[in-house]
């Protein structure tokens, strides 16, 4: 995390990268900080528009759930799926220890 004091509306790249579970090198931090400050400054343009009383659009088509009969059917082949995993144990995905 950066210790330098920033304007509250500035992006703190090191902090946001931590939220995104993305390790950055010192060079990347410096480079992205400069580039993203410029990009954030640009997209802040959106605040100049009069948006009072405007409903947000999340999606352009009305979405409804699609239901099917509650019948079992073939899923993906387990071996084929596990073949894509970087580490497998006992037919399951293996990850580093989580709980001591």
């Amino acid at each position, binding site marked *: 995390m950066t210790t330098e004091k920033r304007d509250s*509306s500035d*992006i703190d*790249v090191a902090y*946001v*990268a931590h*939220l*995104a*579970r*993305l*390790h*950055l*090198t010192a060079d*990347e931090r410096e*480079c*992205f900080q400069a*580039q*993203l400050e*410029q*990009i*954030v400054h*640009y*997209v*802040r*343009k*959106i*605040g100049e*528009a009069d*948006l009072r009383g*405007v*409903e*947000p*659009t*999340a*999606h*352009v*088509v009305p*979405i*409804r*759930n*699609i239901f*099917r009969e509650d019948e079992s059917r073939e899923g*993906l*082949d387990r071996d*084929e*799926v596990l*073949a*894509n*995993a*970087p*580490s497998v144990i006992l037919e399951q*995905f293996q*990850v*580093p*220890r*989580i709980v001591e």
Partner: protein
Amino acid sequence: MDVKSLTLTGAGELLARGDCTSVELVTAVADAIRRTDAAIGAYLTVDEESALSQARAADEARAAGRMGRLLGLPVAVKDVLNVRGQPCTCASRILQGYLSPYDATAVARLRAEGAVMLGRTNMDEFAMGSSTENSAFHPTRNPHAADHVAGGSSGGSAAAVAAGEALAAIGTDTGGSIRQPASFCGCVGLKPSYGRVSRYGLTAFASSLDQIGPMTRSVRDAALLLEVMAGRDPMDSTAVDAAVPPYAARLREDLRGVRLGRPREYFVDGMSAEVAAAVDAATRRCRDLGAEIVEVSLPHTEYAVAAYYIIATAEASANLARFDGVRYGFRAAGATDPIDMYGKTRAQGFGAEVKRRIILGTYVLSSGYYDAYYLSAQKMRTLIRRDFDAAFERCDALLTPVTPTTAFRLGEKTSDPLAMYLGDIFTVTANLAGICGLSVPCGADAGGLPIGLQILGPAFGEEVVLSVGHAFERSRA
């Protein structure tokens, strides 16, 4: 056999008449790839053996009297769509080694009509970029000038079609990624309306904006591929249950009774005079074909790039959370716990542009900033949709440039991401509004680089957009 200028429809006629076999066709395309692709870099993988065996099966099916709208015709597919048994890297190191266990719906529909899956085309990593320079493997060069970009993110698909290395290709368009490279490389590219083609099996970048579409050598070929891929899909709740017209059969050759709008905000200071002149000439030609031209206004255009880069990156930051080194692809070595593993895997697996967009998207969604950025961008999206609704009350389709300039030089914008984003000004609006857009070649600049005409139509207005494109294309032939 010369496949350099053969269309998909033309090749289909050769096959139907028995003038050639699918094996001969696929062999000719594979030969063209071998001769040309070292200089272009359009493909990431070509599986000639598999393509030839699909071609043999198609020839046998034809001999047995079976039909298919694409029987025996080779199609290249952007490396972001799952094709069973093939890699799907999304041009990222994080998916190196991944083999698709299933077909995307669009791919399954192409296969059901007999198409031959030939190979996987290059792209900007996870479709994030406008030049295909963000591929983790190699850039794609413009077939018209090797020191210029092919455009992006579907640059491999566009270059393959333009360089004679594919009869047709499939791309995806989140903010112009079909139309812009089609324009830069001089081929036809269609971004269907949101919901026209199922996204099942497409590796998601921005789920409310992504669409799959064809990149071809003729508007008729684009119509043919669209009618095969389009339609409802139980696997994608956003694939709209609307009838799929026989687009290719309904193409018109004159434009009598058609009203075409010219949005004044799409002709701006700083754009290339040659691009503006080519689009103006195309507009006059459409008038000569019988169309009435009206001036329209899309007043919120100036906010489109800002709204787009907020919404697209926000959605991307969520979609790319799935690349964590657990279920597929690359995992960094030496992690002590899962959190460390995620951070290291993503650090080593993603390229710079993907990292920038994940950070920007995470930022605009983070506590305290959501209303100022994401919510405001969604409100702007409503205003941009309303702009188009109002315009389409006055006309059937809009004629605009695809891009403010022709293809730029490799490396010209790589260190200035904002400059790269600003070039998307004329294409991102269609994705935000969910409407359809077609890019059709309409000329070239003094250096011989192609210029594209963009034809925008209302949501599910592909028939009119394709007809305008077809009539225009025929008038130039």
